């Protein structure tokens, strides 16, 4: 960003080079705030934490209400008393979420490095807050802002829509007219705000240069600077012939989990949002640790799933060890010259596998709990002996 501002001062478009890839709104924000950069990033982190706190507080109320409704409707099996959540245990969850975000070493690192990812996180946190509070307009505006910043939050349109439909008590049936009406309304709000923001950026810098620089850059992955993601080494070692094909495959990979997840998790849109944010953080073209900090902040919300998680110990060890080894192997490759890029790449692979298995573990635990809630905790087979649950 500092480079972009310096280029602007020299009278050259910041997008004429290949260094600056942020949106024009960011450059104008920092034009005024560059002196107080550290303060700005601290404030954005605090804002994110506060937004998450308020959002989860509201969400807990919704969860409790829904649980009460389902108990009265007798949807739950008789022996699941220990799985029912009580207000007592849910009392401290919002605080834990805020603390998880603020005290996460990844967040601290992101703040110290003054990475603009913190601003992305703030916008997404406000989007989540607006969605959970039920304001479709604000939710659409924040989602448009988040999509404008980095393309991937587009996939969060689905969970937000599902949540808002649920809140309005509109059933999700393809033939229902009110469903389509609401969907079209929300989509229109979203698209209009996106168009307004893009046009505003055009008028700020008087050119459309920023579109290939920002979105073309995200989609076509030209810069291969090593990061914690999977893309960089893959495209560094790619045969030129297949480069376009694999870029398309990798980008589609981020977006195509949305529809299946929407079908499976249509009753639980907030969990869907969590899984979607995690998938974006793992598979986006230039991931940073700030993105990881955002979805990890949600883990206390699902702390009641702890008894169903299968591999949590190994996965936490993997994640901690890999985070510690990242800087070591980077130093060995770039500065000491005694390791080569394969070492760093291996840690990248392991770290990403750890994250993927963490998310799928939570997903498994969530689905399992839902099964137990409806079918009872103590399952018996036809002959009366204790049963095992398998996925078939």
């Amino acid at each position, binding site marked *: 960003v*500092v*480079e972009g501002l*310096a280029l602007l001062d020299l009278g050259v478009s910041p997008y*004429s080079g290949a260094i600056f890839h942020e949106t024009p709104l960011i450059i104008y924000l920092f034009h005024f705030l560059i002196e107080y950069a550290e303060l700005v990033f601290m404030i954005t982190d605090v804002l994110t934490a506060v937004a998450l706190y308020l959002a989860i507080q509201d969400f807990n109320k919704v969860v409790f209400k829904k649980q009460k409704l389902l108990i009265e409707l007798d949807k739950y099996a008789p022996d699941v008393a220990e799985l029912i959540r009580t207000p007592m245990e849910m009392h401290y969850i919002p605080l834990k979420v805020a603390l998880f975000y603020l005290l996460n070493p990844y967040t601290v690192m992101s703040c110290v490095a003054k990475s603009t990812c913190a601003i992305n996180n703030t916008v997404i946190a406000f989007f989540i807050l607006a969605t959970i509070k039920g304001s479709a307009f604000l939710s659409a505006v924040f989602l448009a802002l988040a999509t404008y910043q980095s393309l991937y939050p587009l996939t969060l349109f689905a969970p937000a829509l599902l949540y808002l439909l649920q809140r309005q008590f509109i059933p999700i049936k393809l033939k229902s007219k009110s469903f389509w009406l609401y969907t079209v309304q929300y989509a229109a709000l979203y698209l209009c705000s996106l168009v307004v923001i893009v046009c505003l950026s055009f008028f700020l810098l008087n050119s459309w240069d920023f579109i290939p620089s920002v979105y073309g850059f995200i989609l076509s992955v030209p810069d*291969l*600077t*090593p990061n914690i993601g999977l893309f960089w080494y893959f495209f560094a*070692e790619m045969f030129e012939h297949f480069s376009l094909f694999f870029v398309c495959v990798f980008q589609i*990979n981020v977006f195509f989990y949305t529809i*299946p997840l929407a079908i499976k998790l249509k009753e639980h849109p907030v969990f869907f949002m969590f899984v979607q944010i995690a998938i974006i953080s793992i598979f986006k073209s230039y991931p940073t640790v700030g993105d990881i900090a955002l979805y990890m902040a949600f883990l206390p919300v699902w702390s009641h799933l702890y008894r169903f998680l299968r591999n949590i110990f190994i996965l936490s060890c993997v994640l901690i060890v890999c985070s510690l080894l990242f800087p070591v192997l980077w130093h060995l490759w770039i500065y000491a010259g005694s390791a080569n890029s394969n070492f760093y790449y291996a840690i990248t692979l392991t770290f990403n596998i750890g994250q993927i298995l963490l998310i799928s573990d939570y997903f498994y635990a969530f689905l399992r709990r839902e099964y137990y809630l409806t079918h009872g905790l103590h399952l018996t087979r036809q002959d009366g002996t204790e049963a095992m649950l398998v996925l078939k």
Partner: protein
Amino acid sequence: GGMLAAAVLLLLVAAGPGLVPVRAGRDALREELLLSPLPDGDVAATFQFRTRWDADLQRGAVSHYRLFPKALGRLVAALGVRELHLALTQGFWRTRVWGQPPLQAPAGAELWVWFQPTVTDVDKAWEELSNILSGIFCASLNFIDSTNTVTPTASFKPLGLANGTDHHLLRYAVLPREVVCTENLTPWKKLLPCGSKAGLAVLLKAERLFHSSYHSQAVHIRPICRDASCLAVSWELRQTLTVVFDTFSSGQGKKDWSLFKMFSRTLTDACPLASQSKVYVDISPKNKEKELLEVTPPPTSVHEAIVQGDKRTYAVYDLLSPSLFNTSRSLNVQLKWKRPQDSSDLPTPILHAQRYVSGYGLQTGEISTLIYNTHPYRAFPVILLETVPWYLRLYVHTLTIITKGKENKPSYIHYQPAQDRRRPHLLEMLIQLPANSVTKITIQFERALLKWTEYTPDPNHGFYVSSSVLSALVPSVIAMKDVDVEQSPLFTSLFPSSDGSSYFVRLYTEPLLVNLPTPDFSMPYNVICLTCTVVAVCYGSFYNLLTRTFHVEEPSRGGLAKRLANIIRKFRGVPPL
């Protein structure tokens, strides 16, 4: 007048040659050789072969080529070239030790061309031109493409006639990795009217020329005024070759030299096609002491000139004068030092520069340029042109210029950032150098990771950054008088001066060698497999969770393994599974 004065002149091309009928114009060849002993004991030899042709290559199809080589003539006419400068250099001119260079060129291959305003697609013409020149000179100039071509705005003004200087017609490229060898010298010699058979060109033997510390051969084509009234255009082709023999400083010989010792040949006659053929030997006395050196055989005349702010005396041997070859069939100019000269007194040139890269690790680095102005009381501006390849990402907000401890803001700065894989960085600045000062210019950069096919076969050798160019009008201590181009073309081209008080100098700094982080080149298949495995793990887990539902496990009778295990258990007396 000097060339820079002529460059300001507006030429009405339409009026002149339109009235002159198209025919083979007069052409003239002048060959000159300048031998100058350098301060540290080495000898620099500069050859210049200048062909001037009174014809207009741009208009009308000229079909009869005599002295002007056809290959270059047709190139100029077909591609609409206004000026062409190509230099192939091996080695580096050590300005501190050798003094101001007569005609410096950067290490490697340098090509800069001004196109005519009638050329519509300059980039296409540039590409064709570099390919054709690569064929003519057997050099890999076809590697010149958009990633190493820039369009400087201030540094390279036209040296020939020009009306208007739209810098979009200029292209400049340097290939720092280019190696110069015999196969580049041979086609260069072939372009000479006498070849290497007669005249000064007999001295150009490859085995001696490349056994030197600096070798630079160049071709310069430009339009000039035909006469003082400047109503018509002539074309001038100058082929120059500068070589520095280092027999003394490398400890192989004494400071005395002779043509035979340097070139292992002597001059036998002048080129029959040449109208002038001269050898100049610099016999300027140092510290005002005459009789320090002796030149044999005695020269035909002595010429005095003020060159680069210094008064110099030259012994002239005119190969066309009949008296030269009276005594012997061959001319072997010899110079003997009568008294051993104390070599501690090396005069420092007024403007010199050095450049280096600093930093550690393979992530970031810093390029620093030091420019020295040793003039005791005059300050003058200098234009610095830096071309940095795109994979060293410059951060212009880290650019600092410090003179004498204080910040020095450039009065003109033109920065064009690089685009990945398309064009390099271009930084041009006009910096004022105060008298007797050192200016330090630093800029930080970050190293990019390239795709594995973009590395050279020896990636750990590093990547070259081409020399930066410093152009300045250096004020001279002694007033210089204007020299006519026709009278002594060597001096006007080697030591140009615009007015009597300053002379034009173009210096090049060292090329830099920078290492980039490398991926492992043996791994493409492995990387693809492993990364796709990770993606597949995600896909697999999610597919399972999304498409399958929980079921209570049905008791099964057990497979083969279970039955075998039960049989073994029965033997052991343990309850069955």
